[in-house]
């Protein structure tokens, strides 16, 4: 799977961009604030409809313009054209010229995994970050997951509103509890099945990158231990006080342990950084493994943060993406240009919202 064409209008610092890409390795070079990361953001947005910088649509509109457009063509199983337009008053999303009615029809057309500085929050941030990571992983590998998650979220929000009423209507509460329990149980089950398949990949990736003696373990700690309905009923007393749903997959945790101790408290900064990259590496491998083709890798300057030895650990993933006619986009400032990646690179010069292909390097 690879992106063959990218079109931007009024996106971040790009007034207008038309670019064509082949499979393989693309290095985006340029100084700070020239728009390297914006390109990765646009590709990720096309794939997931989210910015990996955690911002909304308004921040991505070019200063002074009304709305942005991002379009792309993907060659995977067949060729597909993806187009999105965002303005404060209008959103349009189309796949192959047809308006998208169900997100599940759209997502999966382009699969991407991003490596960026924000990833550190996977280790250091609150549980929401890790739950969202699990959700993304499942949505990228199981077509049935997203509708379940959407249904759960809606039922949960409804239930929480019922709990917030001055006088809780028990019958009404019960009516929304049914879906929360039914769909929530399925979510827990899918996550429970995922983690044992996924965690060996993280452990291996970590070992490869860190070369350390420490042993990494990834464990799923579901909020629901056995029976959601029973545990929710037991929490009713406390729910009366807190006025919100206290048990359920929205409270799950993905625990990261280094030598059996929580990485967030006991890990060094370097270990945490390595762990974040290991999680993303494993995501790319898992998603690629499930679909038989690697996802597009978007690497935002993380190589710069790693010493040469740790970088080596990441190379197999990049090499594999290369061989399987996958695609990698990587941003670099001239300074930290990674020598070991060799010469089979397409080099692009990014300057003030324009990009230009260099001839094949060296």
């Amino acid at each position, binding site marked *: 799977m690879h992106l063959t064409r990218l079109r931007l209008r009024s996106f971040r610092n790009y007034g207008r961009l038309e670019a064509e890409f082949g499979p393989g390795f693309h290095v985006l070079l340029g100084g700070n604030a020239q728009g390297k990361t914006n390109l990765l953001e646009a590709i990720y947005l096309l794939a997931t409809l989210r910015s990996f910088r955690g911002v909304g649509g308004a921040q991505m509109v070019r200063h002074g313009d009304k709305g942005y457009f991002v379009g792309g063509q993907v060659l995977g199983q067949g060729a597909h054209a993806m187009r999105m337009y965002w303005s404060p008053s209008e959103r349009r999303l189309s796949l192959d010229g047809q308006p998208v009615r169900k997100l599940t029809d759209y997502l999966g057309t382009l699969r991407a995994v991003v490596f960026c500085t924000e990833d550190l929050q996977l280790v250091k941030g609150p549980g929401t970050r890790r739950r969202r990571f699990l959700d993304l992983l499942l949505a990228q590998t199981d*077509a*049935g997951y997203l509708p379940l998650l959407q249904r759960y979220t809606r039922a949960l929000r409804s239930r929480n509103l019922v709990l917030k009423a001055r006088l809780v209507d028990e019958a*009404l509460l019960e*009516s*929304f509890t049914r*879906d929360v329990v039914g769909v929530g149980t399925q979510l827990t089950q899918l996550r429970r099945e995922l983690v044992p398949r996924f965690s060996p990949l993280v452990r291996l990736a970590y070992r490869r990158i860190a070369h350390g003696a420490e042993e990494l373990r990834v464990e799923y700690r579901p909020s629901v231990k056995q029976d959601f309905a029973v545990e929710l009923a037991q929490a009713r007393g406390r729910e009366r006080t807190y006025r919100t749903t206290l048990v359920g997959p929205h409270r799950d945790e993905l625990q990261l342990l280094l030598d059996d101790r929580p990485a967030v408290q006991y890990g060094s900064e370097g270990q945490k950084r390595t762990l974040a990259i290991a999680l993303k590496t494993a995501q790319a491998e898992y998603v690629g493994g499930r679909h038989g083709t690697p996802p597009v890798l978007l690497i935002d300057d993380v190589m710069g943060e790693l010493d040469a030895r740790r970088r080596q650990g990441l190379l197999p993933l990049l090499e594999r993406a290369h061989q399987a006619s996958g695609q990698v986009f990587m941003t670099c400032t001239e300074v930290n240009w990674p020598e070991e990646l060799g010469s089979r690179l397409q080099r692009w010069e990014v300057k003030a919202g324009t990009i230009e292909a260099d001839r094949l390097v060296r």
Partner: protein
Amino acid sequence: MPMPVLPAPLADLMAALGKLPGIGPRTAERLALHLVQADPSFVRQLATTLTNARDRVQGCATCGALTELQPCALCQDDRRDATLVCVVERAVDVWLLDKAGTYRGRFHVLGGKLSPLNGIEPEDLRIAQLEQRLEREPLREVILALPTDVEGDATSHYLARRLAPRGLKITRLAHGLPAGSGLEFADDLTLSRALEGRQPIA
């Protein structure tokens, strides 16, 4: 350069049309421009038709379906099974079910579904009216024909629970595969529901 000024009545018409469901600013503009240039007699007739329809069509005091008569033709029809009532969300659902032709009982329109996210509570729906009918009419079975989204399902369960003490038969429409199509056209949720609701085949 001065902006071309839109005549005020035309702007008002656009604004009014734009409030209709499914009509965006572009369509409102096109319709308004068409109307102000159309044959005056046609526009006058359209206006009369509009007000007439609005004045004469109301919700049936009994079942809530749209009607010109009180009670509506469906409620008055003696040939319909007076022991069955089918509960639907919107007035238009009555026609959908009636058009399908197999259902010959009464109807009851709730006028919405329970939705905390939209501030719709039990008192906002025609549930009390349904309970009054259960007192008054010889109803023996309540068929819940509500949507199967989160709010629709919650409404079904809420009603089932609230009506349970009355000792009526309470049923809901089956979930399953669209008639006449293959498995490939059903999404995962539909398929798993269809599997749960499987039935013995003789």
